[in-house]
């Protein structure tokens, strides 16, 4: 009886005999032993060998052979199969038992007579069949026991293994106990042991929690298998009982311990499969709910995957719809996203315009075509959408026939019977709408809607994150563009300030933002005439930068033709008036300096006046003139004037933009014209560079070192002749 104890010492022995050769050898040894038993039985029939020790020896030989069989079976045993599959396997095994039993009945051997509580075979065929049947059944039952073990161990808890080992020990003990008695004899110890064993069987039979985790389909199969196995083993219990049929007698004659083993395992199988059948039956009504909970859990788990998909918007929305189908077993699902309407964009297919700023776009769909989605969204669908957008609560339509809003869906090819529509919320705003349909009425219960809602919340976060990433990438791109624009604009300004022995020039221009609307330029008209222009486009930023570039083009081309500042400005006005926006204008001041005489002609188009300083006295030179692009050309020409100033040694002329005079710290006063005048007034004797820096320092002090809000340009001229 050592064979069953090895069962628990796991596979140590088994692995040590892993190779094929030793397996074949073991097989041969076991076969040989059983053959010897068979020969003994044959001899026993004619010669009286019923001496105690010989019979004991015969039983032990049989048990050793079965121990070997156990080792062999265990070595090829696969443990990892699911319990339900094992059940199917057990069913196949019982077929073996069944066929053999039926065969035995048909052949109907002569049987045995009971004599002195011993079994005496009535014919040679009885000996042959009891040998064959004893071997086949014992091995089959051994496998049945292994199957039961694996099923029980599939959901282990504390005590699972212990209980099973107790049962095994009791079964083994029962078998060993038979050695003391004659085959048909029974004692009170046997009865007691039997009762204890049955109790242990019952205890082990409560290990059926694996049933809970079966899918509904598996549970139905389980009920059928469980029931069949239960019936078969009941039948088997009966035919293998001691006083039962020829089947029982045959095994009993072959080996009393094996008979006890077969009977106990069969009884255990009966109880266990009976319990399986009943438990599964009770679990069946909740099977569907359990299935769904399981799929919900796995879907919600999948949600975490959404987080990693934020880099690909299309992949993300596709996952959202696919998972929606999974979580509520919907027939079809689609997702609409509320997007900003970019002006000038031609609406794409599946786009629905909400208002002037936003559109709703179908971004992903499953098991439904875009045309069908559009059908759903038409007529009453518009009402639903509006209710979702305004109410921000899920809407469930249990039956499209009953609901006014979905009358247009009756009789659609892609059958829809019930609908669930859930908003995707982000910061209390509806950023999308998730639709799910079923082709049965009342398809969405409260649980479904809760799950879809929970799901929609996660999806909203993922979509929002995806958008934020997109936005930040876009912002980065724009920033690079702006840096590029800044570089470009810098190149539009003179790279080098011209210098003459008699005329010092210094200039500086800093935009408040990346690009600005301030402009200054110099042009040498001929050997002794220099044009100096400072301009300021109204507004700031990119739009101003474009006009600034245009102004440069105009100045560079017109300055070579017109030798009077006034004339140039009149022409500039004519050129600009057609192209400039009504709200915008360009203020410009233009001076032409005679490098021989220091004579300066100044014309102004709405620009800050020139500051002229001579001998500690400073004044503004402000000829009249409208800003470029402001009035009609007629008024412009009529009103513009020009002034002449003659520069003497040490005289200073400062051109600037309103960034200087209007520099204002927060909640403070402007820098102003008077302050500028004061600064320049005391600059006699300073170089042009020093004068420029003085002005900047004064402005900076006035601003309390805060960053300026407007573009700022200064051009300083100093006459040294």
């Amino acid at each position, binding site marked *: 009886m050592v064979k069953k104890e090895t069962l628990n010492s796991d596979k140590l022995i088994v692995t040590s005999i892993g190779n094929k050769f030793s397996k074949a050898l073991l097989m041969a040894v076991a076969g040989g032993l059983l053959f010897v038993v068979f020969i003994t039985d044959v001899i026993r029939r004619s010669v009286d060998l019923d001496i105690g020790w010989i019979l004991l020896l015969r039983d032990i030989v049989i048990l050793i052979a079965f121990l070997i069989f156990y080792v062999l079976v265990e070595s090829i045993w696969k443990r990892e199969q699911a319990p339900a599959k094992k059940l199917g396997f057990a069913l196949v095994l019982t077929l073996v038992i069944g066929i053999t039993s039926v065969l035995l009945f048909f052949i109907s051997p002569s049987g045995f007579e009971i004599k002195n509580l011993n079994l005496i075979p009535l014919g040679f065929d009885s000996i042959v069949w009891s040998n064959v049947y004893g071997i086949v059944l014992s091995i089959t039952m051994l496998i049945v026991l292994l199957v039961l073990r694996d099923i029980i161990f599939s959901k282990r808890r504390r005590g699972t293994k212990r209980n099973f080992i107790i049962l095994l020990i009791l079964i083994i003990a029962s078998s060993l106990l038979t050695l003391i008695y004659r085959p048909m004899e029974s004692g009170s110890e046997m009865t007691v042991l039997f009762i204890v064993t049955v109790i242990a069987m019952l205890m082990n039979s409560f290990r059926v929690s694996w049933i809970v985790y079966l899918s509904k389909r598996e549970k139905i199969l389980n009920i059928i298998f469980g029931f069949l196995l239960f019936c078969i083993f009941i039948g088997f219990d009966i035919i293998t009982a001691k006083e039962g049929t020829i089947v029982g007698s045959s095994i009993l004659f072959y080996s009393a311990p094996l008979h006890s083993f077969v009977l106990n395992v069969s009884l255990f199988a009966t109880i266990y499969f009976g319990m399986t059948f009943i438990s599964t039956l009770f679990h069946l009504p909740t099977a569907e709910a359990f299935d769904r909970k399981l799929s919900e859990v796995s879907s919600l788990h999948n949600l975490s995957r959404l987080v990693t998909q934020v880099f690909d918007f299309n992949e993300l929305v596709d996952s959202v719809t696919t998972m929606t189908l999974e979580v509520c077993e919907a027939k079809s699902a689609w997702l609409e996203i509320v997007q900003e309407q970019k002006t000038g964009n031609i609406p794409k297919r599946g786009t629905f315009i909400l208002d002037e700023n936003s559109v709703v776009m179908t971004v992903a769909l499953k098991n439904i075509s875009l045309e069908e989605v559009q059908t759903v969204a038409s007529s009453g669908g518009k009402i639903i959408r509006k209710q979702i957008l305004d109410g921000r609560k899920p809407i469930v339509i249990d039956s499209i026939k009953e609901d006014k809003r979905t009358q247009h869906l009756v009789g659609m090819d892609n059958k829809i019977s019930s609908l669930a529509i859930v908003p995707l919320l982000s910061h209390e705003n509806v950023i999308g709408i998730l639709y799910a349909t079923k082709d049965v009425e009342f398809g969405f219960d409260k649980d479904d809607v809760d799950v879809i809602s929970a799901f929609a919340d996660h999806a909203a976060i993922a979509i929002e994150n995806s958008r934020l990433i997109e936005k930040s990438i876009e912002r980065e791109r724009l920033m690079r563009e702006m840096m590029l624009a800044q570089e470009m604009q810098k190149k539009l300004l003179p790279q080098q300030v011209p210098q003459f022995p008699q005329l010092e020039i210094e200039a500086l221009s800093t935009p408040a933002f990346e690009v600005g609307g301030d402009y200054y330029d110099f042009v040498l008209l001929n050997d002794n005439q220099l044009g100096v222009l400072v301009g*300021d486009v*109204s*507004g*700031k930023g990119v739009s101003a930068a474009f006009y600034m570039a245009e102004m440069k083009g105009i100045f560079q081309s017109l300055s070579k033709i017109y030798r009077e500042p006034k004339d140039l400005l009149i022409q500039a006005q004519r050129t600009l008036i057609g192209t400039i926006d*009504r*709200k*915008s*204008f360009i*203020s410009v001041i233009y001076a032409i300096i005679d490098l021989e005489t220091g004579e300066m002609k100044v014309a102004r188009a*709405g*620009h*800050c*006046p020139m500051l002229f300083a001579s001998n500690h006295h400073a004044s503004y030179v*402000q000829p*009249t*003139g*409208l*800003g470029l692009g*402001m*009035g009609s050309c007629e*008024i412009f020409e009529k*009103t513009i004037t020009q002034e002449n100033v003659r520069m003497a040694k040490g005289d200073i002329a400062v051109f600037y933009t*309103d960034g200087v005079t*209007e520099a*204002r710290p927060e909640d403070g006063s*402007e820098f102003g*014209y008077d302050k500028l005048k004061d600064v320049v007034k005391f600059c006699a004797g300073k170089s042009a560079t020093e004068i420029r820096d003085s002005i900047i320092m004064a402005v900076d002090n006035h601003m309390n070192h805060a960053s300026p809000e*407007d573009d700022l340009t200064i051009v300083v001229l100093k006459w040294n002749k």
Partner: protein
Amino acid sequence: MSNFKIDIREKENINVIDLKGYLDAHTAPELEKIFQNLIEVQKFNIVVNCEELNYISSAGLGVFMAYIEDVRKHNGDIKLSNMSAKVYNVFDLLGFPLLYDIAKDEAEAIKKFISVKK
């Protein structure tokens, strides 16, 4: 930038807009909207009272330029009044007095409208 306020009232069938505070790129759209609304309801006689206007930037000036043509097309006008010297200087630099009727005070501006009508 809430230190800008616009009030609108009607006086002798003329719409008077009171500007207070700083009119710059941030606040200009508010004034734009007012002009748009007035033009929409066919009110073309407008006086802008600049008494409490502290500052006007080029963007602010642009608002007047944007609507003057529309208003004048309908025989109306935008007249400015009660400017402080500082604000007047800004208008003056750009040559606004050449294009716009800038009155000393509101009454004078209104009187001009009425006399034209007669």
